[in-house]
């Protein structure tokens, strides 16, 4: 492999990794807050992509400008999912974990059906936008602008999330709720409100990823699946609930996958990623940065 090809593969892997991290962090946040694995996470991403597409088709404004609208929509959507579905799934006295998995799994199928009904099963894409299809070459290493934009958004989102968690009352409430749910009720924090906001925030982060992805990826009702699988692995590899872990694991997965596709038949490029996950948790059962 030439040095140029090496750096190309590395750069592509890092850019994709930042996006994986952004997709995964919402999942990790929700998990860390309340120990729920959202099986409709891929569908959240899909909804965000359709939201971007739909707004673009109606308003005709560039997806970059639509991002705040998409985030706001996804925030409401996430909070609504908590209040309308997950809240009830948490009432189960025993095996509430399984109930949550299957309630959100049912939700995932439902969302797919609704998308098919509203948007038809056809593959959509946003053919022309400011960033779409543009690319810059630095010393022969090509950096597609949509992905660079996505990477920047991801870095900013993580920085913002860090500030939010450490500097604001909302962040402290989140932190307190995840530390000790019982004690929180005592100090008068409304648990349901914190959870709803947490779900809103988690969904808004996926919304961010979806609004970026819509610029350069195709959109259809099943688009979420492969991304969701990557997101689960990223979250678990980084450690459930760890925001920084999601970032680190996203980058690792992106780079490993990128090089694996060069080193072995690309059809099997996910295998090294999966083996890496297994290797890590066999040594550290709570992932890279997780607390058990």
């Amino acid at each position, binding site marked *: 492999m030439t040095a140029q090809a090496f750096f190309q593969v590395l750069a592509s892997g890092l850019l994709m990794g930042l996006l994986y991290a952004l997709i995964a962090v919402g999942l990790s946040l929700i998990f860390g807050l309340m120990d729920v694995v959202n099986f409709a996470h891929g569908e959240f991403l899909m909804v965000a992509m359709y939201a971007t597409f739909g707004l673009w088709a109606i308003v005709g404004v560039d997806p970059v400008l639509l991002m705040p609208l998409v985030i706001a929509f996804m925030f409401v959507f996430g909070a609504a999912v908590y209040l309308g579905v997950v809240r009830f799934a948490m009432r189960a006295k025993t095996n509430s974990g399984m109930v949550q998995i299957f309630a959100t799994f049912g939700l995932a199928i439902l969302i797919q059906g609704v998308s098919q009904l509203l948007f038809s099963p056809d593959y959509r*894409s946003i053919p022309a936008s400011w960033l779409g299809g543009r690319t810059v070459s630095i010393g022969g290493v090509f950096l597609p602008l949509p992905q660079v934009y996505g990477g920047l958004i991801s870095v900013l989102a993580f920085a913002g999330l860090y500030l939010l968690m450490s500097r604001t009352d909302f962040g402290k409430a989140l932190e307190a709720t995840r530390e000790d749910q019982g004690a929180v009720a005592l100090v008068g924090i409304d648990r349901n409100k914190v959870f709803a906001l947490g779900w809103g925030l988690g969904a808004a982060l996926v919304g961010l990823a979806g609004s970026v992805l819509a610029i350069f990826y195709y959109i*259809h009702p099943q688009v979420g699946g*492969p991304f969701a699988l990557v997101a689960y692995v990223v979250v678990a590899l980084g450690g459930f609930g760890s925001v920084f872990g999601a970032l680190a694991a996203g980058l690792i997965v992106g780079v490993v996958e990128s090089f694996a596709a*060069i080193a072995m038949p*690309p059809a099997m490029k996910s295998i090294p990623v999966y083996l890496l996950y297994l290797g890590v948790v066999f040594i550290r059962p709570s992932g890279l940065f997780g607390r058990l």
Partner: protein
Amino acid sequence: MTGFNRRHVLIGTAAATVTARPAFAQAPAEIVIGALYPMSGANAQVGVDARNAFETAVDIVNGMHEVALPGAKNAGLMGLGNAKIKLVYADHQADPQKGRAEAERLITQDKVTAIIGCYHSAVSNTVSVTCEKYGVPFMCADSSSPSLHRRDLKFFFRPAAHDEFFSKGMFDFLDAQKASGTKIETLGLFYEDTIFGADSSNTQRKLAAERGYKIVADIKYRANSPTLTSEVQQLKTADADVVLPSSYTTDAILLIKTMGELGYKPKNIVAQAAGFSEKAVFDAVGDKLDGLISRASFALDMAGKRPSITYVNDKYKARGNRDLNDNTARQFMAMLVLADGIDRAKSTDGEKVRAALAATAIPGDQTIMPWGKVAFGADGQNVDADPVLIQYIGGKWVTIFPKSVAAAPAKWPM
């Protein structure tokens, strides 16, 4: 086919009394045909498009149309007292088991005369076996795996080409280009990890070896992968004279986008249709595809030689808001071939329809396809379904090969 044993036949008779097929003394008013397609899931659009193609075909059969297609002129099926065709759709969700179950339901509950389907080769596989067991003809409209007609099935019919024909057509074209002085030495294979990708690439690999092309990239990728960057990087490094992709819609979009992002402009692309005949791909990345060559069972610009094409395409477009393509044209034509068989059988009896289909002889100019004719071999494969190669130039498809039907010479390099 090891044949039905006595017991089997007896069970069949017993089932027949229950399912009570219409007696042909009195012609039925409706002939029911089952169409089995993916109607939900990742390929649901294929099912929706197929539906429009079939409705167009049935419209032509059931009504009176002045167009050179079998069964068009008179209303309904003449052989069955102008009976009309009615279609029943079912969703197989790309699952061979579900396809089989739906086929059984269509046969036993809806009492279909024949089944048409199924896009996914894996599903066509189990559905055709089920049809065989019930003695109901299976019209394979658009599955192109060569293994399908090699199972000694008596009730299996495929009017269109399979992947070996298609790949052979592509290599004949490459040979012809080479003979005319173009330098074509190296090939890059890029194919998904499915039956389609395996069948396509196996044939291409074999033909490349036989005809002296060097394969410089042989890339099997995971279908619907989130990213294809490293895969495309390898194609770019190899920089083959011709890239031969076998990809469906999603990956075709991603492949072309990624090529652009990595600053890779392939010298030529000769595609195994599939995604590269779908409207969604050209909506998304059409601007990057000027000069793309694809094999095809169908070419719109052959309307000069086949006047029925414009007629049919207009009708189809009115329903589906898109032009006929490789898949929908095959689906449309398969339905006409099936209707023609039932018409000549003058019966809805499976065995009689089978016999009539086996005796099909539709001349090429009675189709919308570039085929020489429709006539099935003992294995149910139409032997004269040669594909053409078409090139996407200025937003339109132009037939470029073989010479006999070409509207223009190929633009080479793309």
